[in-house]
């Protein structure tokens, strides 16, 4: 998230597109609109429009699940982080994602799926009642649409910096395209385009590490070059995490393991409806379990197109990239320019167009994810229970279509607001992070502990969120307070995110447990299908062992451990 702010200040245009590059970009827009147009007749019922008919295969749901998270700013921001912090940035792709995805697949997905909920707030309604759903749905809908606007502005700014495109043109063309294809085809259209975008991102970005490694003389020689130009610390994943002062990120292993892996990543990948919605569209329970596992398999590969270009930039770029604060004053290139710079370094006519298309595709898939998730939560978790209870299915589909358009327009409005008041961006990003950790605490306790009561769930969620807001405000007012939040005078910004999440999760769990024990438990009959121990978890069917989710989760788990040891 912090990368978003940073992509906003370099005044020079980095690359120039040829006519063939522009043809590739135009073809992309034509294709995504064609897909939306083709699917418009298949989004007539609520199940079709909001849940893609619940007929997605494991592969489609899994790639869409990953693609919704693979935004352009994510690609550029983490490539910049790899340049700045070295291979430590890989933690956000491996331990900061893989265990959570496997946990979602094997532990949580059966409950989401068999409860037939339309959304994560919908599960909270079933488990903890209306107040918890309302708190979660309102905060999610509000923040999702604001984040979409912030991303839109940041991406338009990137297009202005990289390509010299007019910022208003970028905002309106991309947002109207997303609005059209999601309004026409609903979630199915969003998912189809996300899978397409997944392939384009790989096709456009994979050449950079291939040619970069060739130029650097292979991985071994790349490490030597990085040690010469930066530090040997930049190529170790774990061995420098013994203390805050021993690595360029200013974080220790406790923050990575307990803050990032156990709380933030678990919260994001298992309760953020933006990604979970894709899995809920799976056609059966086996596909719903396999989808996150397939996503995890590909997630482990994403550092090849994100982290490796950043590391290669350290080794082969003739200039030294600088922090955004210096770049904005001197006009030099910042860390966040490393991916476009590497793109311009290796990609000639045609390839450059594909690379730019990959960035645009990444942005649009993220925006479509935000808009479709917002539409569903607004319609099913706010409009239907709180405003208009007894509408027909057709009425709610129409509401979904209008909400898509309105959501995009609010996002555009937010983008223009951010254009006027840049500091809003920091606040919106911070607000989004407030809800993730406590929401995970509430949902996981609800699924695993039958004694958790409705009051416990609500107050735990509220107190965890307030705890997060309180710590963020404390550090904002007094930056030296970070030493108390992260428990070290050497802690830096990213450590704050990890420890803030950890404390708010702990607060949520403690309050939920205390309040639950002090209040009346829910009747067991109400919890059937929602809580472990009271639910017959459905089997994945009669399939050979090599088609079972647990087998592939084990394969992904073994590869994940091996990668961490190899790059220790």
């Amino acid at each position, binding site marked *: 998230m912090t990368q978003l702010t940073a992509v906003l200040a370099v005044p020079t245009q980095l690359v120039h597109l040829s006519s063939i590059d522009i043809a590739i970009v135009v073809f992309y827009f034509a294709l995504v609109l064609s897909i939306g147009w083709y699917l418009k007749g298949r989004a007539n019922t609520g199940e079709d429009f909001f849940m893609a008919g619940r007929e997605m295969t494991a592969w489609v749901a899994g790639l869409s699940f990953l693609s919704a998270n693979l935004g352009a700013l994510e690609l550029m921001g983490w490539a910049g982080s790899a340049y700045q912090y070295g291979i430590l940035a890989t933690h956000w792709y491996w331990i900061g994602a893989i265990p959570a995805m496997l946990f979602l697949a094997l532990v949580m997905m059966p409950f989401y799926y068999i409860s037939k909920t339309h959304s994560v707030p919908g599960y909270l309604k079933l488990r903890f009642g209306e107040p918890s759903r309302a708190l979660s749905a309102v905060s999610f809908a509000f923040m999702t649409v604001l984040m979409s606007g912030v991303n839109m502005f940041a991406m338009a700014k990137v297009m202005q910096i990289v390509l010299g495109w007019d910022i208003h043109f970028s905002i309106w063309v991309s947002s109207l395209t997303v609005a059209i294809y999601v309004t026409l085809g609903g979630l199915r259209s969003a998912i*189809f385009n996300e899978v397409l975008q997944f392939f384009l991102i790989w096709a456009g970005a994979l050449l950079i590490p291939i040619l970069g490694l060739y130029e650097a003389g292979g991985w071994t020689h790349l490490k030597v070059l990085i040690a010469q130009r930066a530090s040997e610390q930049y190529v170790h994943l774990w061995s420098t995490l013994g203390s805050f002062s021993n690595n360029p990120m200013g974080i220790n292993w406790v923050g990575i393991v307990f803050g990032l892996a156990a709380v933030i990543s678990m919260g994001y990948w298992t309760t953020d409806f933006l990604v979970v919605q894709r899995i809920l569209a799976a056609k059966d329970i086996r596909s719903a379990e396999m989808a996150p596992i397939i996503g995890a398999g590909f997630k482990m590969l994403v550092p090849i197109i994100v982290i490796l270009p950043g590391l290669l930039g350290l080794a082969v770029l003739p200039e030294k990239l600088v922090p955004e604060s210096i770049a904005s004053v001197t006009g030099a290139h910042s860390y966040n320019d490393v991916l476009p710079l590497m793109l311009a370094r290796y990609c000639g006519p045609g390839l450059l167009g594909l690379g730019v298309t990959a960035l645009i595709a990444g942005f649009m898939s993220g925006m479509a994810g935000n808009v479709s998730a917002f539409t569903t939560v607004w319609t099913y978790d706010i409009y239907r229970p709180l405003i208009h209870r007894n509408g027909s299915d057709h009425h709610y589909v129409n509401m979904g279509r209008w909400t898509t358009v309105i959501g995009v327009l609010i996002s555009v409005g937010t983008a223009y607001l951010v254009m006027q008041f840049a500091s809003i961006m920091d606040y919106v990003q911070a607000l989004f992070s407030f809800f993730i950790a406590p929401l995970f605490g509430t949902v996981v306790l609800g699924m695993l502990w039958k004694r958790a009561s409705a009051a416990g769930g609500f107050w735990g969620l509220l107190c965890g969120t307030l705890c997060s807001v309180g710590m963020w405000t404390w550090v904002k007012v007094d930056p030296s307070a970070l030493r108390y939040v992260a428990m070290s005078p050497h802690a830096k910004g990213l450590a704050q995110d990890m420890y803030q999440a950890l404390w708010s999760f702990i607060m949520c769990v403690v309050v939920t447990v205390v309040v639950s024990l002090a209040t009346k438990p829910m009747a067991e009959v109400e919890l059937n299908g929602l809580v472990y121990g009271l639910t017959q978890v459905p089997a994945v069917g009669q399939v050979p062992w090599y088609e079972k989710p647990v087998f592939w989760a084990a394969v992904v788990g073994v590869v994940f451990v091996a990668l961490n040891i190899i790059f220790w």
Partner: protein
Amino acid sequence: MISIWFFIGISLAVNGALILAAGIYQLISPPANPSVVLFNLHANVWWGALLLVVGLLYSLRFAPKR
């Protein structure tokens, strides 16, 4: 319903064809001062060809008539 994999095949094939065409053009009449490093590898030729082949395979395998 047309498979998503067909759309992906079309996308890769068209992009591959355009990139390959640009690469062949540069192979025939190379620029005096190439704007990219490793120009001698002619990445747009083999990468474009690879995308074209993969795209065609997907398009044929998942063509609507099947």
